[in-house]
């Protein structure tokens, strides 16, 4: 399977069928449109930007209305809702809702305006409340705050920024303005921060009193009301009530529209689709009564689409293979076993046209390495059951999520299998429970060996796995060179490296030092070792002599030497696989620590309760962290070590003209 072969498709059709043809293409979602630059006396392009943005605006109004509904009438969603995917909508439902679209749009605008009204009234409420707060100290005043006096008297209304008693006020006025004979001061309100007063004097004494008051820190109110404060307060309170009622009625109205949610979601999708269609129209070249459309289509889908189009419309379809230097988009198609790891490949980059799709090979290694790092039967079984249930229950999941869940399902199987191989069941829960609560220790023997008793053995195994992984990557590079007929590169870049690295490994295994360090049970006979030593030497000489590309022989030789230096890269690549051991052991040992902590209560009832609690909390934490670790490091081994040997990636992903809706799926009916 692997990379889908793309074909160029060109369609020439009548303009009267344009809408139906585009609708059909959109529902099938099999063609990526290319912008046709063709413009002459006959063919021109139409500018659809305006309509498109109109539809986009309508779609966003509908989404805003849904947001408003969600704010006031929250929809109850379960934790698992994310797996549910978009609901498929039948043609009948589609037509029914489509007919009501203007009505729904009105509802949407109304909801948005209601929410705007609520926001405005809330802002108004804040403003009114501030005014009320400012007026509150003046409530006792029964004239306007702008009152300045009568014909014969002058009035001063204002405040001091300190608490003052009436006596104190009279005393200070008498001290500061002894010439003022008759003054009447009314205390309107007093608090710890301010004292509000009204002072009345005969007109003649006004300047003297004003001077005295000012030196005492007298301030006139910043925004005096025209009406007496008590009346003004009444008016403001009335306005507050009105604003509150307006907010409540708008809220009630929004809540009454809760049923419109589905149709609003539909409307958002509907206009999104129409906007996409208008963007597509912008890609076409059109004459007075015909139009031309061009794009890419995966070869397996081409025949079916051609048949569907020609049976319904009068048009011409032309399919051809794309040229060598065209920027062809890339799409993958794999079987159920390999497909789940496509997501991992996509996050690195899709294969270039000169490369193959490494997904199937990568999938085998991915599951294998993931399981080796997570390696616990209990965790693997949990992962398997969890993802399996989700897969069974939610058939309608979005493809990306579905792939990921399925990937973890396979990883779970591998994890459980490795758990049996290394006898890890939630760490050593079988041993701990039997020892603590049953009195005699039971242990399940490992299928192979216990890693903690013999870490060296697992380290050697991890590196051996690494060598296989790396050599497979190198093998793919060999295949690619041979496929392109580039025999020189196949020899210089791959075969010599096989000879050098492979030769060095076998030679190393024949030396006493390496055999004793790695605690190997066997040693390669010295004779065979020296033969492989020579093979490695030939490889090294080959690399030095052939990998330079300068014209000067000395420069070429230097470049070759530099290339040979990459052998350290192979060393670090192989050592990098020691993470398989480290992460594998970490899962088991941390699990054992948790079990041991839990069993500290001994064989008592509180002890059992403690064990259950520690077991649950501890293993959930360990499961999460180790799962993350295994996932990240599995990706790293693929991206850095494996892909480093043969893969570049970076192709443009295939993005067909389709209904990119958020809430519903519009099925092709037939």
């Amino acid at each position: 399977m692997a990379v889908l072969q793309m074909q160029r498709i060109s369609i020439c059709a009548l303009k009267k069928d344009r809408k139906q043809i585009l609708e059909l293409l959109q529902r099938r979602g099999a063609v990526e449109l290319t912008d046709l630059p063709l413009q002459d006396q006959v063919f021109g392009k139409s500018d659809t930007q305006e309509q498109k943005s109109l539809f986009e605006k309508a779609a966003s109004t509908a989404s805003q209305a849904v947001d408003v509904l969600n704010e006031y009438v929250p929809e109850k969603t379960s934790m698992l809702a994310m797996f549910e995917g978009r609901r498929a909508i039948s043609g009948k439902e589609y037509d029914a809702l489509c007919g009501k679209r203007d009505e729904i749009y009105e509802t949407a605008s109304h909801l948005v305006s209601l929410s705007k009204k609520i926001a405005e009234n809330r802002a108004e409420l804040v403003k009114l409340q501030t005014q009320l707060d400012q007026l509150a100290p003046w409530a006792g005043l029964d004239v306007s705050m702008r009152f300045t006096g009568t014909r014969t008297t002058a009035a001063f209304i204002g405040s001091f920024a300190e608490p003052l008693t009436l006596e104190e006020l009279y005393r200070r006025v008498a001290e500061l303005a002894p010439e003022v004979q008759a003054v009447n001061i009314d205390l309107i309100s007093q608090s710890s921060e301010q004292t509000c007063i009204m002072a009345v004097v005969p007109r003649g004494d006004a300047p003297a009193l004003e001077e005295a008051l000012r030196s005492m820190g007298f301030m006139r109110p910043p925004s005096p009301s025209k009406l007496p404060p008590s009346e003004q307060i009444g008016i403001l309170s009335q306005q507050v009530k009105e604003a509150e009622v307006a907010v409540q009625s708008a809220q009630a109205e929004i809540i009454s529209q809760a049923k419109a949610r589905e149709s609003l979601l539909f409307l958002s999708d509907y206009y999104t689709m129409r906007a996409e269609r208008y963007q597509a129209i912008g890609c076409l070249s059109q004459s007075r009564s015909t139009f031309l459309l061009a794009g890419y289509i995966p070869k397996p889908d081409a025949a079916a689409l051609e048949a569907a189009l020609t049976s319904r419309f009068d048009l011409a379809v032309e399919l051809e293979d794309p040229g060598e230097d065209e920027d062809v988009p890339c799409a993958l198609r794999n079987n159920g076993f390999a497909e789940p790891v496509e997501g991992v490949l996509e996050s690195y980059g899709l294969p270039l046209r000169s490369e193959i799709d490494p997904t199937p090979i990568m999938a085998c290694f991915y599951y294998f390495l993931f399981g080796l790092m997570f390696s616990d039967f209990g965790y693997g079984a949990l992962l398997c059951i969890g993802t399996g249930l989700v897969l069974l229950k939610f058939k309608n999941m979005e493809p990306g999520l579905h792939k990921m869940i399925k990937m973890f399902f396979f990883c779970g199987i591998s994890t459980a299998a490795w758990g049996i191989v290394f006898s890890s069941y939630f760490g050593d829960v079988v041993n701990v429970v039997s020892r603590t609560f049953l009195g005699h220790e039971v242990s399940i023997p490992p299928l192979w060996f216990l890693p903690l008793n013999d870490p060296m053995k697992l380290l050697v195994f991890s590196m051996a796995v690494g060598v296989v992984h790396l050599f497979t990557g190198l093998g793919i590079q060999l295949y690619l060179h041979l496929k392109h007929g580039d025999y020189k590169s196949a020899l210089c870049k791959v075969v010599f490296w096989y000879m050098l690295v492979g030769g060095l490994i076998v030679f190393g295994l024949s030396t006493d030092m390496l055999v004793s360090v790695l605690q190997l049970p066997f040693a390669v006979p010295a004779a065979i070792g020296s033969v492989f030593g020579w093979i490695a030497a030939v490889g090294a000489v080959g690399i030095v002599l052939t990998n330079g590309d300068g014209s000067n022989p000395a420069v070429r030789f230097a470049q070759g030497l530099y290339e040979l230096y990459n052998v350290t890269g192979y060393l670090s690549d192989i050592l990098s696989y020691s993470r398989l051991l480290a992460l594998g052991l970490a899962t088991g040992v941390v699990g054992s620590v948790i079990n041991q902590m839990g069993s500290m209560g001994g064989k008592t009832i509180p002890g059992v309760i403690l064990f259950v609690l520690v077991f649950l909390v501890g293993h959930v934490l360990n499961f999460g962290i180790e799962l993350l670790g295994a996932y990240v490091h599995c990706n790293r081994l693929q991206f850095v070590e494996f892909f480093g040997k043969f893969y570049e990636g970076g192709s443009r992903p295939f993005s067909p003209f389709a209904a990119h809706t958020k809430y519903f799926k519009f099925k092709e009916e037939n």
Partner: protein
Amino acid sequence: MMANMGIAFAILGAALAACLAGAGSAIGVGIAGQAAAGVTTEDPAKFSKVLILQLLPGTQGIYGLLIAFLCLSNVGVIGTPVEISLAKGVMYFFACLPMAIAGLMSAIYQGKASVSCISMVAKRPDQFGKAMIFPAMVETYAILALLISLLAISGVGAINI
């Protein structure tokens, strides 16, 4: 007196492995958490992605715990007590050092790499797969240190001094 110092050295090693690696992880996860909180304020939908990136520097603490536990159970503080000579205790101490020191430093720098990758995900959420790899590169050295500490501790157990 000196004969009993062996076990003290071994426990010092175990404590250092747990303390330093744990402290490094705490710093790393802490600074990454600050960045993650900032991104989540702007876009709560990115929570799960930035959470994963935040957690990446947390593994060193677990490796430290693992080494400390192995060391403690080898010298009999956990489980059946065994006789530990001074030389052997000092060996355990040194065996713990790689994890302690490399764990401390790598967790801090992994945290810094995570912070940058969190801001990368904030701008380009589609590049999450690549963003995860950069902090994981730093972790390689913690894993290598873990490996050496692990092999050393299990090797010291087999030496008869």
